[in-house]
C-alpha cells in the first residue's frame, strides 16, 4: 500500500529517492538486526558466566535436604548469595578490607572474618583464593524454612603472603559446614566452619 503511494508521487526524482530511502532502511534494518544478535549473544554470555567473580563456580545439590522441601527460587537465591559471599570473603582477605562483606555474613561468621582481616592487616599478611569450586550439599532445611545447613566440598588455590612474598600455598579440597538464615532480601551466612571431615 505504502509502496504504491510512493511510486505515484509527483516529481521526476522521486523514484531514485524512494530507492535510496529503501536501501537506507534495509541497511538500517540489517544493522539493527546484527546489533540485536550481538546484544542477544552478550546477554547469553552474561548468563553463562559466573555473575560475581570470574573464577568461582558453585553447584548445589538439594536432593538430601529435609524435612522441608527447597523451592527452586530458594535454591537459586542460596546459590547466588553463597557465591557472592565467597567473592566478598576472598576480596576482603586479599585486600584486608573488612567493609566489603555486603551484609552476607552475620554473627559468628562475620566476627571471625572481621577479626581475621584486622589481624592480617596488623601482621602484614594477606590471603589469596583463586580457582574456587564449591559443591554444596543441603543437609537440613528447617521445617519453617528459617534455617538451612549445607556441606561445602570446596576446592581452591590458596596463597598466604607476608610483605608481598608467598609464605604458603596449596591446592586442595576443603570441607565446610555452613549455616545460612534468610535475611531481609538475601540468605546470610551465620556459621562457616572448616572441618576435617563431614
Amino acid at each position, binding site marked *: 500500500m505504502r509502496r504504491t503511494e510512493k511510486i505515484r508521487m509527483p516529481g521526476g526524482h522521486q523514484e531514485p529517492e524512494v530507492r535510496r530511502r529503501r536501501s537506507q532502511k534495509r541497511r538500517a534494518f540489517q544493522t539493527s538486526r546484527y546489533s540485536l544478535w550481538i546484544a542477544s549473544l552478550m546477554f547469553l554470555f552474561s548468563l553463562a558466566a559466573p555473575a560475581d567473580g570470574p573464577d568461582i563456580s558453585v553447584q548445589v545439590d538439594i536432593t538430601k535436604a529435609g524435612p522441608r522441601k527447597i523451592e527452586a527460587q530458594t535454591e537459586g537465591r542460596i546459590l547466588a548469595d553463597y557465591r557472592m559471599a565467597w567473592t566478598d570473603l576472598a576480596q576482603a582477605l586479599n585486600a584486608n578490607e573488612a567493609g566489603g562483606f555486603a551484609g552476607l555474613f552475620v554473627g559468628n561468621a562475620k566476627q571471625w572474618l572481621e577479626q581475621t582481616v584486622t589481624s592480617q592487616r596488623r601482621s602484614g599478611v594477606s590471603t589469596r583464593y583463586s580457582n574456587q569450586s564449591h559443591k554444596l550439599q543441603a543437609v537440613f532445611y528447617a521445617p519453617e524454612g528459617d534455617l538451612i545447613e549445607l556441606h561445602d566440598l570446596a576446592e581452591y588455590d590458596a596463597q598466604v603472603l607476608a610483605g608481598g612474598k608467598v609464605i604458603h600455598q596449596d591446592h586442595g579440597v*576443603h570441607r565446610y559446614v555452613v549455616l545460612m538464615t534468610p535475611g531481609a532480601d538475601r540468605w546470610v551466612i551465620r556459621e562457616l566452619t*572448616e572441618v576435617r571431615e563431614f
Partner: protein
Amino acid sequence: MLALALACPTAAQEVTVPRSAVAGTDVTLSTTGSGKADFYLVGPGVASKSKVSLGEEIRVPGDQLRYAGKYLAIACSATCNSGEFFVTAAQPASLAFLVHPSRVPARQPDAVSGVVLLFDKFDNLVVASETINFQVKGANETLFSRAISTHDGEAWFRTSSGKTAGAVRLMAAVGDLSAQRALQQVASEPCHLRIKAQPTAKGIEVETEPVRDCAGNPISDGTIVTFTGTDPEGKISIDAPIKGDVARAHMKDAEPVVISAACGVAMSNELRIDLKR
C-alpha cells in the same frame, strides 16, 4: 602428632603440629632446625606474626584459637615450612531453640516444630554428636518426649498439637544446659453451632450457645459468627464477634423470618420466627 613440611624441598626446619585442638585451649607446636625464624599463625580470626627460635617449642595461647576451623602454622627463616591443624568446638555452652508456631489450633497433626542448634562458649557450632532431650507438655498431657541426636550441630522434632487449649511448654536439654519456650494452644474450628432467638419490641435478638471446638475448647473471643436472616423480601447478614463464648446480633424484621448462623466450617440450626402471630 603430625609433622608436615611444605613449600620447601630442602627444609631446614619442620613445624610439628597437633592433629587437632579444642577451641580456646593452648596448643604447643615444635620446630626443628636452629636460629631465629618468623612464625605465622593463620586461621579463622587470627593472622599473627612473632619471632621464634627454631628447635624450641612454640606455645600458641588459647585466645588465638577461639574459632573452630583450620589453622596454618608457618615458620619462615631462609625458607618457609608449615603445618596445619584443626580446632574443634569446645563443650556445648548454649543452645538456640527455635519453635514454631507461637499459636496453634488444638488437635492439628504435625503442627508444632522445634529446632535446636548447639554452640560452645565461643559461638562455634558444636558439630560433634550430642543427645538432646525434647519435651513438649500441655496443661494435662505430655505431647512429646524424645531424645534426639544432633547432626552437625542441629536436632529437630515435629509433633501434633494437644487436645486442650492453653499454654504449652517446650523444653530442650543437653547435659546441664536447657532452654524453654512456650506457645499458646487455642481452640480449633467450631463444632456444633447452635443458635436461639428471642422476639423483642424492636425485632429479634439472636445469639449462639457457647461456641466450642470438637474437644470442648471455647472458641477465642473476636472470632466472627455470621447470622443470616431470610424473609420474603430477601436476605440480611450480620457479622458478630464472639465475646465470652457467645455471639449476639439484633435483627429488625417484622416479617416471617428464617435465621441461621455460620462460623468457620460449622453451620447452625435454622430458626423460623413469625412475629405477626
